[in-house]
């Protein structure tokens, strides 16, 4: 709405300028200035939104953050105590997600970028990957319920949830890994193949190492997304409340996003636990930002060291 209004404004203004009979150059100059202003505004909107979200969550959540909150289990119907099991549950399930999604994603990307011939089947695979990336997370949740929980008999467990999240992040991991492999100059491949080494050796020693930073960066961004997902773990293993940490792969677990969902919609006295909900949101968003920061640092480190 606002945008189209702005657009109209510009159009009117531009028309005015032209009508007044200004020199053509001047009107172009103005057009350009307005154009840049819109571009600048659009990018600032991002920053503003992030700042508002962070401000809101920090001001409302920081009050409950203390050592007890971070290291204790919830007590008295989640009105007291901490979120320790939810923090660790999210950390564990994200680790399982990484173990599932990174190797499969990297191998699939190596196949697609280095081995597969360009043809119908490769196109089909790529199309499938792109479409998988667009499947809503709740659908992944249902799929995980059908396949891992019931089909393979893994039950509602941290393993089922990790596998489901792993599937969900796979398209991101594959795409990121493929881009990273594409960025490795072809002369490295040719140079090593010309020395009479096998293709796999060449990829392993002279292509993959240079793609690792990009793969990790993309992979971590995908994982940080997965860490914050609720829908895929809802049916596959997240528990309403568990005072202890998951003891094995078949345990259920608490998770930060699901805990937040419960505190803000399912709790018997939502108003009372609102600060705890904000505190949980703050911890979750901090966790995600730390992961993203890690991705940025990895990228920066490799960018500096190689050149």
């Amino acid at each position: 709405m606002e945008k189209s209004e702005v657009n109209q404004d510009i159009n009117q203004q531009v028309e005015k300028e032209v009508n007044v009979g200004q020199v053509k150059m001047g009107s172009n100059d103005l057009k350009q200035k307005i154009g840049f202003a819109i571009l600048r505004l659009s990018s600032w909107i991002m920053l503003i939104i992030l700042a508002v979200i962070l401000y809101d969550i920090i001001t409302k959540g920081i009050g409950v953050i203390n050592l007890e909150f971070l290291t204790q289990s919830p007590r008295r119907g989640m009105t007291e105590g901490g979120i320790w099991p939810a923090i660790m549950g999210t950390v564990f399930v994200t680790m399982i997600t990484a173990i599932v999604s990174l190797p499969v994603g990297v191998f699939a990307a190596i196949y697609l970028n280095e081995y597969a011939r360009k043809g119908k089947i490769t196109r089909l695979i790529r199309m499938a990957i792109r479409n998988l990336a667009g499947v809503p997370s709740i659908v992944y949740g249902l799929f995980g319920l059908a396949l891992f929980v019931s089909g393979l008999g893994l039950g509602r467990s941290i393993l089922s949830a990790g596998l489901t999240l792993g599937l969900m992040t796979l398209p991101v991991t594959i795409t990121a890994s493929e881009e990273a492999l594409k960025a490795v100059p072809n002369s490295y491949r040719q140079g090593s193949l010309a020395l009479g080494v096998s293709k796999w050796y060449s990829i392993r020693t002279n292509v993959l190492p240079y793609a690792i930073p990009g793969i990790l960066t993309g992979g971590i961004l995908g994982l940080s997304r997965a860490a914050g997902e609720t829908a895929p773990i809802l049916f596959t293993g997240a528990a309403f409340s568990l005072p202890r940490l998951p003891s094995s792969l078949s345990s259920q677990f608490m998770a930060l996003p699901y805990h937040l969902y419960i505190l803000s919609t399912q709790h018997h006295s939502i108003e009372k636990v609102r600060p705890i909900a904000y505190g949980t949101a703050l911890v979750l968003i901090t966790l995600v930002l730390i992961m993203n920061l890690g991705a940025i640092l990895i990228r920066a480190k490799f960018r500096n060291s190689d050149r």
Partner: protein
Amino acid sequence: MANEQIKLMIEDLDFYYGDFQVLEGVSLKILVNKVTALIGPSGCGKSTFLRTLNRMNDLIEGTKVDGKVLLDGQDIYDKGVDVVGLRKKIGMVFQEPNPFPKSIYENVAYGPRAHGIKDKDELDHIVEDSLKKAALWDEINDRLDQSAMGISGGQQQRLCIARALAVNPDILLMDEPTSALDPIATAKIEDLIENLKEDYTIVIVTHSMQQAARISDYTSFFLMGEMIEYGLTDKLFEKPEYKKTEDYITGRFG
């Protein structure tokens, strides 16, 4: 010419990119321990031809080869030929220096390592030997552990030559190896080629006829995918047999 030993014998070679024919009926002999230069205008197929000799064109999808390339009598396009092993025998140096982003030492040791040499002393020996053959040892032996990306373009190209020599090939294919280098670096590579032919058979693609005249024993002139003329370099430049060759040569010099 008849009593020279033939290293590579190319018989009636055709090459296609998809439907587009790049090489047509090329036949050529490459003699042992000689430098053979391939000259011709851009797009004449000389680089493509060079890449058929170690089957690097196999890496490009949709290409097709007809005809024979006999290496010591054995057709390298026969079924069951070990392409990886073939490329070990026929080394290649590319137009742009393409060192790997590893240390100088690791660049040279890459091939031997890949072929299973693990012994540190042996690797050290190969690296030193190869760098000496490539006339680079004296310049960089005090910084072998530094990144190969940090040395000059000319040094990088000689490093790539050393890297190719480290796997002990019989033949060295060079695809316009000096086109990205300044005159001094070019002169060094040309001197190097003169020395290398004592141990290796060299085929070099060059866009510079002066370079071909300076360093090669035999020259082959390509035009529009066909091999027009082949012979001793001196003879080809002084008394070309064919009008097309003469036109090309005089056109450039005159």
